[in-house]
């Protein structure tokens, strides 16, 4: 640099010197004009001076045709004087086209007498070489013609230095600019395009191909091409279909050499390049590129790492302007690439982090949302639940209350901080205190980390609302973390069960009622399960079967009731359990000596299977007895009916022979003398025959009873009826030694009756009296008949044991009998009363035990309707 400055100074001095000389020359010129003679001398001097001047001196006309050139000019331009003179600089193509206009302008100035210069021109010297020259030109007049005197100084060296300096400054500016740009180059920008474009600025008109290198695959990948222009087709031909996507494999062996840039010494046909060397596979490709121009290769490496390479294809003859700048740029790029890689890694790490953060955030948000949702749900539940939710301390002090407490009339402030135990019913507090103690025990355990041992219990108690009404509450408490997270609380979920309680009470009372009803049913009712076990039974059941319901011991009913090991044959329960249909049976239970009517009905479960059986066992012993009696009566009635028929037949059959016998005896009697011994015998025979006839007649009249529905009332004498009955029963009275006394008042008129029916009534009463007298020491029957107002009163008295007052009225009930089964029909007196009532009369019993029985029968003497009717019929006969 110091040399350059020195040169510059020299140049400057020389220039000034020359200017002074020019001034001298100008003065001389003027002098020459004045002094021609002196001029020649001077001309000669000048000539020689010019000839040997250090600057080139030339003269040309305004057309540019050289008229003169000194030695130095020859030297500078490279052409010999003979080649120059008479030829225009245009013709000689001394100036490149870019200077032509400039030259023309200067010439124009010269032509009007103006001096120009010094101006720099690039000269194309002989052989095509270029030289920078500085030209100063002044117009001169010679022979009336204007010509141009030019001084040309070779400034190529100076220019070169200047150029270098300028280039240096430019490169510095460029490098600092690109460095800045590289620094601020964002990751999204294509750094390889950037490299390609800027490298091209450094190396001028060329094609730059930039590769990136992947450590992983060991491949160079073509990333960018700049300045290819029309060459892209040629490149494609060389590099393949798609130059941007091209990859060049690289041998790992040579990678260190690329990065160190010492490959130019590696043997094996490597190409020596401007900035280091590339291994053969790359060079092979580059070799292909060589056909396109001069190729230089650069590797971007930094601290042992290879980032990529650039291949620069230049026009032939072009040279790299400033290798230093290129190298610096490449270094910058390497650094930038490293930074970018670091950035990329950082970005990746950042992205990953960000992604993780996002993910985590999303998770958190989700969790948060879930928490919110759950909180919302809980809030919804606690706010809207019909239940009361409260949290208390282990002492029972409220720390939280759900809004539902408002329904009790309480606000939060009414209860918060208060002790629930103090509010509830006194009796319940006493009951619940031990429970709280239990919770307190749990709390202590909880403090030792045993919280997980959950403990919850349901309790019921009474709790007042704000208006003082008692509510039945049912609470479930469980140990939970306190709301503030410090310590433990008890969470109570409480339900108002007042209504349920009321319903329960109603149900209870209904159940009670049912139970009472069930128990008050006099029929034994029981419910049995499928295994014949008693589930339930009423009191009547327990009493009837002598079973203590509390000591069933799961024994089946047949064991309990019948004492058997399996159900009885025909057990309706067994039938129902087997068929699912109701069943009934009647049987005699020998253990209890009673008749039972048992009916069982199925109770179905949800699956339509028989779940249990309702078993109703009625004691039908009495009914059975009644039935027996009825059966007996029916049999008797049938028997009597048969007897009646038989008797009628017999009577009919007997009456005829009886009539024969009677008449035959009477005939004999008539023809027998009273003195004859046979006479009284015949009389006896006649009497016996008559007695037979009477017996038959009586038999007939009684056998006809019951068939007399159509028999009309008739007038009859009471005495006759009584007489007939006594006669009929005479065989019994005689056998049992009963004295029958009868007194019928004479004033008693005939009465309207159905003879046979009344006869049966009398028979009944007298028959009963005879029964009553059996076993009595005094056997007397007294019958009395007399008028009493409109009635005929007939009294039957016996000396029997009498009839108890409570039985007196019942004896007229159908089937009531005091006689052993089978002996009495129990119908006698009830039928008798019916008959008498039908007659418009009455029959009553008056008796005191010990004094015998007295039956009073009243029969109307006149029954007008009957009488009138009868009168009409009777009158013709009378």
């Amino acid at each position: 640099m110091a040399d350059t400055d020195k040169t510059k100074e020299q140049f400057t001095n020389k220039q000034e010197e020359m200017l002074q000389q020019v001034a001298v020359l100008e003065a001389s010129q003027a002098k020459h004009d004045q002094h021609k003679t002196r001029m020649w001398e001077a001309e000669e001097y000048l000539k020689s001076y010019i000839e040997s001047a250090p600057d080139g001196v030339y003269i040309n006309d305004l057309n540019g045709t050289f008229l003169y050139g000194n030695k130095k000019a020859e030297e500078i331009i490279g052409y010999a004087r003979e080649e120059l003179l008479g030829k225009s600089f245009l013709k000689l193509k001394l100036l490149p086209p870019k200077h032509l206009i400039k030259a023309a302008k200067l010439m124009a100035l010269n032509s009007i007498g103006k001096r120009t210069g010094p101006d720099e021109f690039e000269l194309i010297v002989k052989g095509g070489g270029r030289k920078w020259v500085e030209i100063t030109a002044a117009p001169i007049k010679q022979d009336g013609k204007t010509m141009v005197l030019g001084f040309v100084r070779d400034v190529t060296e100076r220019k070169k230095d200047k150029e270098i300096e300028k280039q240096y400054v430019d490169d510095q500016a460029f490098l600092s600019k690109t460095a800045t740009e590289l620094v601020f180059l964002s990751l999204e920008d294509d750094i390889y395009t950037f490299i390609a474009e800027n490298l091209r600025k450094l190396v001028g008109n060329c094609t730059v191909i930039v590769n990136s290198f992947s450590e992983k695959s060991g491949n160079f990948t073509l990333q960018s091409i700049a300045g290819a222009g029309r060459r892209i087709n040629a490149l494609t031909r060389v590099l393949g279909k798609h130059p941007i996507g091209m990859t060049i494999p690289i041998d790992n062996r040579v990678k260190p050499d690329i990065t160190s840039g010492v490959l130019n010494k590696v043997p094996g046909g490597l190409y020596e390049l401007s900035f280091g060397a590339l291994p053969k596979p790359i060079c092979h490709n580059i070799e292909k590129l060589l056909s396109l121009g001069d190729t230089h290769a650069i590797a971007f490496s930094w601290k042992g790492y290879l980032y990529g390479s650039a291949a620069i294809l230049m026009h032939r003859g072009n040279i790299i302007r400033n290798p230093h700048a290129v190298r610096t740029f490449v270094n910058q790029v390497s650094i930038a690439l490293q930074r970018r890689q670091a950035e990329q890694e950082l970005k990746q790490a950042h992205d990953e982090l960000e992604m993780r953060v996002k993910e985590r955030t999303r998770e958190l948000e989700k969790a948060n949302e879930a928490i919110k949702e759950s909180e919302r749900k809980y809030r919804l539940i606690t706010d809207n639940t019909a239940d009361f939710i409260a949290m208390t301390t282990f002492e029972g002090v409220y720390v939280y209350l759900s809004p539902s407490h408002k329904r009790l009339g309480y606000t939060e402030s009414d209860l918060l901080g208060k002790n629930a135990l103090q509010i509830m019913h006194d009796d319940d507090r006493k009951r619940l205190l031990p429970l709280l103690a239990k919770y307190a025990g749990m709390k202590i355990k909880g403090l030792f980390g045993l919280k997980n041992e959950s403990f919850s219990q349901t309790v019921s108690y009474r709790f007042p609302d704000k208006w003082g009404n008692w509510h039945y509450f049912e609470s479930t408490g469980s140990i939970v973390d306190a709301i503030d997270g410090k310590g433990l609380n008890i969470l109570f979920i409480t339900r108002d069960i007042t209504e349920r309680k009321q319903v329960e009470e109603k149900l209870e009372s209904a159940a009670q009622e049912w139970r009472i009803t069930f128990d008050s049913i006099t029929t034994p009712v029981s419910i049995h399960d499928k295994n014949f076990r008693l589930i339930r039974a009423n009191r009547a059941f327990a009493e009837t079967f002598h079973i203590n319901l509390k000591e069933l011991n799961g024994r089946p009913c047949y064991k309990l009731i019948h004492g058997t090991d399996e159900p009885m044959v025909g057990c309706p329960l067994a039938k129902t359990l087997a068929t699912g249909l109701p069943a009934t049976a009647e049987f005699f239970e020998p253990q209890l000596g009673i008749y039972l009517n048992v009916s069982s009905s199925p109770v179905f479960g949800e699956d339509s299977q028989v779940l249990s059986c309702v078993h109703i066992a009625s004691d039908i012993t009495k009914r059975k007895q009644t039935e027996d009696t009825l059966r007996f009566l029916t049999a008797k009635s049938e028997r009597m009916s048969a007897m009646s028929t038989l008797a009628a037949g017999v009577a009919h059959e007997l009456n005829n022979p009886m009539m024969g016998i009677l008449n035959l005896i009477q005939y004999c009697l008539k023809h027998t003398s009273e003195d004859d011994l046979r006479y009284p015998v015949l009389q006896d025979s006649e009497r016996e025959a008559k007695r037979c006839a009477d017996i038959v007649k009586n038999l007939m009249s009684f056998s006809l009873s019951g068939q007399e529905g159509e028999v009309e009332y008739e007038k009859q004498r009471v005495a006759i009826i009584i007489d007939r009955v006594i006669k009929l029963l005479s065989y019994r009275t005689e056998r049992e030694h009963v004295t029958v006394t009868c007194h019928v008042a004479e004033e008693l008129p005939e009465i309207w009756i159905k003879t046979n029916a009344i006869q049966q009534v009398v028979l009944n009463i007298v028959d009963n009296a005879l029964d009553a007298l059996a076993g009595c020491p005094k056997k007397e029957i007294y019958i009395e008949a007399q008028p009493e107002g409109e009635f005929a009163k007939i009294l039957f008295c016996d000396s029997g044991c009498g009839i108890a007052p409570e039985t007196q009225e019942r004896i007229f009930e159908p089937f009531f009998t005091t006689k052993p089964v089978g002996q009495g029909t129990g119908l006698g007196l009830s039928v008798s009363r019916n008959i008498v009532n039908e007659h418009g009369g009455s029959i009553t019993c008056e008796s005191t035990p010990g004094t015998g029985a007295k039956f009073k029968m009243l029969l109307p003497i006149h029954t007008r309707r009957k009488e009138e009717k009868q009168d009409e019929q009777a009158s013709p006969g009378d």
Partner: protein
Amino acid sequence: MSKRVLVIDDEKAVQKSFILALEDTGYHIDTVRSGEEGIEKIKFDRYDIIFLDLKMPGLDGVATLRELRQIDRDVPIYIITAFHVEFLDKLKNATKDGIDFEIIDKPIGSDQILSLTRGVLEGAMDHSPRSEQNV
């Protein structure tokens, strides 16, 4: 001309009872064993009293009664029966139809037969059959 008595009864003992009871009366007594025979008899002979049984083979007593009354409206007919319940309705109807008869329950003795027959035939009607029955 002696009074004529007709006994319609399938029982020989009954027929004989009447014959024996009335042997000294001088009445002419005819006995037949069925209603049909009785009807035949009354077509050709006049009788002063007829004793009629109810239950007989062939035509029963009531039917016979109705036939007899067709032929003779006035002859006193005494139904003598051992068992008249089954004929009660028929008898009632007969009464309603204005057919005249009396009923005497069997058995009756010779004195009753005698007094009854005599009473009817000789006009001594002091002893009605019904009142006799009621003694």
